[in-house]
């Protein structure tokens, strides 16, 4: 993981989330330092969103946090106390800004609410400060647009507004769950730049969740690859792409159409096991070209393989062949 000399801002160990008898997220561990970006990559069913929600105690019932330790700024935060992290310490933005914003409130009011809740401002002071935030996220006519309702703005501006709402809380960390997936590609590029700018300016730790590896690679320092509820590989972004150490990571890279590669990409056979189908042993076994009988006996744990990387595969050395 990150070669940091200071204490990481956030440390998660062994996070597990269950829905009734089914395990959605299991044994998720990672670290994040201030000013760094962790990209969390995974497909549907990978648990990437649920594990982020678990951090802030936002998992909707019947989900519940079954295990896991979280350390924030060096202190342990148990499950009930994670509620207090919301907004003030860790803010979160979601995928679709149209449905993520209250349709009945102006965006100015929604930004102001963050300030009222966490910065002790009220009334006119809150409104002025809200304007400041809207300008900072790049709204071209902040004063006029603060009175707009979410449906009156374009997708890109809406997402900028949600970023303003999140950052106005004054957090040290931002979790962005697929923030650009619903946006056009040119708009996406600008939003990514905005996030990088704001991160540099505010020293934010950023957890960027996406199913799109290419997008994540443009913004992340480290990448955690999730599959069927657990992290299968984690490490510095460029090294991960250059030489993957988990068969799933490798297959995922091969399934992406690459610029300049003018032929269809290689599909991964099979499907992600549903919550109910998760047997013992490695969850990728049924789709893995390197599978051995030993793989099905026990779930491989995430092991440090040096160089800042960890992977959950017993044949990790043979992957990047």
């Amino acid at each position: 993981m990150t070669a940091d000399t200071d204490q990481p801002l956030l440390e998660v160990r062994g996070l597990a989330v269950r829905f009734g008898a089914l395990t959605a997220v299991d044994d998720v561990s990672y670290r994040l330092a201030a000013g760094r970006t962790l990209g969390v990559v995974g497909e549907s069913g990978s648990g990437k969103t649920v594990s982020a929600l678990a951090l802030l105690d936002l998992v909707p019932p019947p989900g519940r946090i079954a295990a896991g330790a979280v350390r924030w700024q060096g202190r342990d935060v148990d499950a009930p106390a994670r509620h207090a992290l919301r907004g003030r310490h860790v803010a979160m933005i979601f995928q679709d800004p149209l449905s993520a914003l209250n349709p009945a409130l102006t965006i100015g009011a929604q930004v102001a609410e963050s300030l009222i809740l966490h910065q002790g401002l009220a009334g006119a002071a809150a409104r002025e400060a809200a304007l400041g935030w809207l300008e900072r996220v790049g709204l071209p006519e902040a004063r006029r647009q603060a009175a707009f309702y979410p449906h009156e703005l374009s997708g890109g501006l809406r997402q900028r507004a949600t970023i303003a709402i999140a950052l106005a809380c004054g957090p040290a960390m931002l979790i962005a769950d697929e923030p650009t997936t619903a946006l056009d590609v040119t708009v996406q590029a600008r939003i990514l730049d905005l996030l990088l700018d704001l991160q540099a300016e505010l020293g934010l730790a950023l957890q960027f969740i996406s199913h799109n590896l290419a997008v994540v690679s443009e913004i992340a320092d480290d990448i955690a690859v999730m599959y069927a509820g657990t992290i299968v590989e984690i490490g510095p972004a460029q090294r991960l792409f250059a030489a993957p150490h988990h068969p799933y990571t490798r297959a995922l890279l091969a399934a992406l159409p690459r610029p300049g590669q003018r032929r269809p990409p290689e599909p991964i056979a099979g499907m992600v096991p549903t919550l109910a189908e998760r047997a013992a042993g490695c969850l990728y076994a049924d789709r893995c070209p390197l599978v051995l009988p030993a793989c099905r006996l026990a779930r491989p744990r995430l092991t440090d393989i040096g160089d800042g990387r960890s992977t959950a595969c017993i044949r990790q050395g043979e992957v990047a062949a």
Partner: protein
Amino acid sequence: MSALLAVERLVKEFRGRGGPVRAVDDVSLAVEPGEVVALVGESGCGKTTLARLILALEAPTSGRVLLAGTAPAGRKRTARRIQLVFQDPFGSLNPRLSAARIIAEPLAIHRLGTRRERGERVAALAAAVGLDPAQLGRRARAFSGGQRQRIAIARALALDPEILILDEPLSALDVSVQAQVLQLLLALRERRRLTYLFISHDLAVVEAVATRVAVMYAGRIVEEASRDALFDDPRHPYTRLLLASIPRLGAGKRRHDTAPEPPRDAPRWTGCAFAPRCARAVDRCRAETPALASVAGTPAHRAACHFRDEAAA
């Protein structure tokens, strides 16, 4: 006319606030048999409206659509020859119907075959798209996104069309599933000699599968070229912007520019619609609408830009 599908000067106008809005503005396109023509553009560019016009789901304000040289008579006739696969596999299938009924529905509507014959056809189609025939009795909502898209493809093939319009068929799918469905689509094209009109905003996928690409902006085609020509040598500033915006793996943290995109209801310019966003724009661009004309030396590569003859820096 060898073109299988020809769109001639199609215009579709809607009444918007403050005057008529042209969702499709004088678009002409020809698709030869066996091609994969990709229609690329961002939201609001008119590509979906264009698809609807081709399928006769909407009537054009002016212009026409020709199939193998003749204008088809009405929507039902068009449906026999061109079919559509939608973007959203969750919204485009009635969740309460069984997969078998969904696939058989076009046959029922056009009164083709006896019940037994339809059943056999459905089974054959399911096999062709990689669905387990034993599962066909299950309701649509029991299937995953990728499987639903397969059902949608099977349904589209039921009438044995010549052309498939695929409107963002992969966008709602996981990456690994995208690759699977893409592989299926290409195999089907080979086996059944289909022609595809592939609408997408995902240039990476387009680069992998298209034979020819048309880029749309504000209701017009601004560049049209063979796949290789477009990606190697784009001649329209918007195309260059699109290509520069595609996230690239392995390039590390990249910077673009942070100024926000202009609002969609920007004042209507005479001249080039892209001028407000174009670094290269000069007065001529604002005064004179550039025509979609051939780049010097390569007649098949056309761009709607006054500077089309300048290669990228």
